[in-house]
């Protein structure tokens, strides 16, 4: 087992954890957290794939793509948060219509 494999498997587990949160939690701030966890899990998989050669530092191309991804994830999170705050202001709820009674926050 190598370091790269450990973190890639960690990334795969994080995709699962994020997906579980996304399905079971109705509160939209939780879904934003879950979305970010799925995203960073995928980054770890990509980074793990770029470090399998056992070199001192991983392949720079996936590294650059991941840095781009982290920045794009932040801009999407900011937009999602702005939409959520507006939804709460207009409806008083932080869940999508039809989901508020049956599911967890």
């Amino acid at each position: 087992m190598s370091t790269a494999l450990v973190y890639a498997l960690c990334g795969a587990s994080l995709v699962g954890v994020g997906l579980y949160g996304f399905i079971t939690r109705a509160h939209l701030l939780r879904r934003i957290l879950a979305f970010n966890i799925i995203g960073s899990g995928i980054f770890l998989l990509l980074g793990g794939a770029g470090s399998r050669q056992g070199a001192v530092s991983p392949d720079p191309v996936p590294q650059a793509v991941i840095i781009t991804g982290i920045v794009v994830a932040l801009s999407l999170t900011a937009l999602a948060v702005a939409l959520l705050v507006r939804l709460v202001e207009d409806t008083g709820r932080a869940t999508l219509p039809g989901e508020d009674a049956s599911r967890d926050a």
Partner: protein
Amino acid sequence: MNPALLFDVALAALAVVAALSAVAGRDLFASVAFYIVYGILIALAWMRLGAVDVALAEAAIGAGLTGVLLIGAWSQLHRKGATETPPGPSSAARLLAAGASASVAVLVAVIFVGLPADGAGLAPAVRENVAESGVSNPVTAVLLNFRAYDTLMETIVLAVALAAVWSLTRDELWGGIPGLRQHARDGGVLATFGRLLPPLGLLVGVYLVWAGSSMPGGAFQAATVLAAVWLLLVMSGAMDEPAIGSTAIRLTIVAGPALFLAYGTGGAFLGTFLGFPADVAGMLIVAIEYVLTVSIAATLALLVAGVPRRQE
């Protein structure tokens, strides 16, 4: 098992536990706190993988700025009473969701393990050509030269995301100022840090761009540090957010992408879009990075600040 690998396994397990606490915990604020802890753990994981540039970006953006954004969102929802916990789904539904998510995780893991091990990836190609990029940090070479296309698009995505956030402004507040006016107690921790840290942050930001050409660092990491300085100045009451109607602020936001686009077009006249000979590329890349840093810093800080809440 050697100690380093043991550390990796423990760190990976901790990250998964923190992520689980963030999605499955009862209290929403605790979940946000766990998410920030999770971001720091992931930054450590990137250090262990040797991806220092990514670790810097993850710590500054993934944990830092996203954390500020989420805490801000929580406090706005809390004020409106929208952080309550309604009854959860049935345990059968939860079990089904857990089974489905675990299957996806296992499938992804199996596919990863099954990837051909002999692929050298693009590392050799980057190593051979890095001398022609004008910089010596291979990650910066990819970001600003070999894959400059992606970075150009990314800076445009940032500006468009900010426009999208601003588009949620109410009509009567258009052109106004994001967030509430912040005040900090004189001589308190926040007011003191608000005076002590900004000059240091500024220095670190300028250094990170310069260092990025040969060592880990670069425009995005530096911009995040500058955005943090901006947020600290606002939070400590030393500075107010600018009005989004301000022409100066709008020009600051588009200056980076516009210059980058002009650079790319200049390259097109010499033969290749975004392509420059090595002897001028290094100097041009650093110049563009400095302008990009200022634009990205302003964009990130304003993305975190959100929609205008007041006029004047």
